């Protein structure tokens, strides 16, 4: 027998979820777009259908799960009658299906939930000339850390916002702009409700990031965060503060990225860090990366406890439609009394 029982089970699982889903989504969306070409007639509108099937295998517990999504990605620029652009609308609406996901984010109801998520859905109005001041209103990414420049929504590769701040997205308003000397900023006031709007109006987040770019490929950013938030699945409130530093530089085919933050969740002290080195070929079709993450906390009157995690990943973009990714995540050291975990993830993504 060439194939073991476990590998056949894995194959059967991924086959049934990935290929069947891709086929159905691909066919239905193509048919849908045959009759939806009117979108192309709207001025200054760029759009894409985005389909993704992501499988996760927890090696320690022999547990399989997957997250599939079908989304519409829109980018529309509004222009005044005098010819100037006045606002940019971004809408990323995704129908997302969980299948057997044990550690699901708190905005899902259960491990097999089906939910519509408005990922980044906001409009950014231009207030001052030369891009000096704009105001963004809607659902956006909290301006903090590497995620601000490198959008990882819906991908296996992730930076620190989720594990450090408790979420990436929030509803609110943000002032943002660019300066001719290579500077940029965003200052956000948001509801602290995360993905959902929520009827709890007592939570909030104030966050901000300033950055300076160097040359064509490097930047350094400084971020701050304060949130009065509810803990997931409880009615307990928490004061969360962070300050962070992030940066990116590139040498030949290599890129080095890092982010570091310190702060508090009430009286618990926290330190988070992430280091990534990646390499790509000159057509950028193939990217390999290694990430090393640390998460340390110190409860009041206790000693520091640290978790060390590594990820090794690859992303292959054969053409402008397909993205195939794989990632192995391994806990080098878990928190005390917690078992180390190791997992494999693969993702097939198709945009058109």
């Amino acid at each position, binding site marked *: 027998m060439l194939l073991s029982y476990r590998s056949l089970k894995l194959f059967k699982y991924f*086959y049934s979820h990935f290929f069947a889903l891709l086929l159905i989504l*691909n*066919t239905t969306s193509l048919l849908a777009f045959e009759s939806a070409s009117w979108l192309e007639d709207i001025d*200054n509108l760029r759009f894409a259908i985005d389909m993704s099937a992501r499988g996760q295998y927890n090696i320690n517990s022999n547990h399989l799960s997957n997250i599939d999504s079908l989304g519409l990605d829109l980018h529309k620029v509004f222009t005044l009658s005098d*010819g100037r652009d006045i606002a940019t609308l971004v809408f990323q609406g995704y129908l997302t299906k969980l299948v057997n996901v044990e550690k699901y984010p708190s905005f899902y109801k259960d491990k097999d939930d089906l939910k519509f998520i408005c990922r980044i859905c906001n409009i950014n109005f231009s207030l001052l000339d030369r891009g000096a001041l704009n105001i963004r209103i809607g659902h956006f990414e909290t301006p903090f850390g590497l995620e601000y420049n490198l959008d990882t929504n819906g991908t296996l590769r992730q930076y620190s916002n989720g594990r450090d701040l408790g979420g990436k997205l929030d509803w609110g308003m943000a002032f943002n702009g660019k300066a001719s000397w290579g500077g940029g900023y965003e200052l956000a006031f948001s509801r602290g409700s995360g993905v959902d709007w929520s009827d709890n109006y007592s939570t909030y987040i104030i966050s901000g990031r300033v950055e300076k770019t160097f040359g*064509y490929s490097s930047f350094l950013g400084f971020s701050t965060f304060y949130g009065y938030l509810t803990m997931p699945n409880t009615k307990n409130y928490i004061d969360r503060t962070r300050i962070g530093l992030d940066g990116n530089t*590139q040498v030949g085919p290599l890129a080095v990225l890092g982010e570091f933050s310190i702060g508090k969740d009430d009286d618990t002290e926290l330190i988070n860090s992430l280091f990534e080195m990646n390499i790509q070929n000159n057509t950028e079709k193939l990217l390999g990366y290694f990430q090393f993450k640390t998460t340390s906390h110190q409860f009041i009157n206790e000693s520091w406890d640290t978790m060390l995690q590594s990820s090794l990943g690859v992303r292959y*973009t054969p053409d402008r439609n397909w993205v195939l990714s794989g990632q192995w995540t391994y806990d080098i050291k878990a928190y005390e009394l917690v078992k180390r975990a190791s997992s494999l993830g693969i993702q097939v993504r198709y945009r058109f």
Partner: protein
Amino acid sequence: MKRTSIMTILSKSSVFLCLVFLNMWTAPAYSIAYCALRDPVVNIYKLFPEATSYRSIVHKITSGTQQQVKNKVSFSIHNNELGQHTLYIAMNKKTPIGIVHSRSEVGLWGLIEIVWALDFNLNIVDFTFQRCRERACKELELSLVFRELIKGKSAQELSALIEQENFSFPPDMADNEEIKVLAKLIIRSAIKTALVTEISWHDQLQSIKGAGD
């Protein structure tokens, strides 16, 4: 696991895989570029310092555009460059003062994003890089001689320039092979940019020119 189960899975997979690949084959007609939709805001004001705002014009670049470019010069745009792209019109108050368009080229260490400034006759005004990992990019951008070489030239003039058998690089570039390779890449990018702009945005540019006259 029984042999029949393996055969069932494999036969079902082959049917599904065939259908998936069939879909892949039929899909490109509806595809758009998978790009980051990055607005080159800072670069618009760098290339046109007197600009106070800008206007975006989105247009779809098709295989027809690709063929038209090929009919005019010995090379064309890559398949990955097809799809919806944005042309920016730099404005001073209500007056259009120039065109900004960015295109990507494959460099030594990754894609090079070149941001081009053109006048309304589609002659090169200036350029800068939005993204480049090569040291030669900085040297080339700072080279006044290279800028003078391409400034004010149309796609036809630039095409004639690089197709000259005795094309000679300016003295400060002549001994640097990396810069020479990059310089030719940049000139080809300028030619493609001017031609693609002329083919794809012709009507909109005529109406902007007409309003300005």
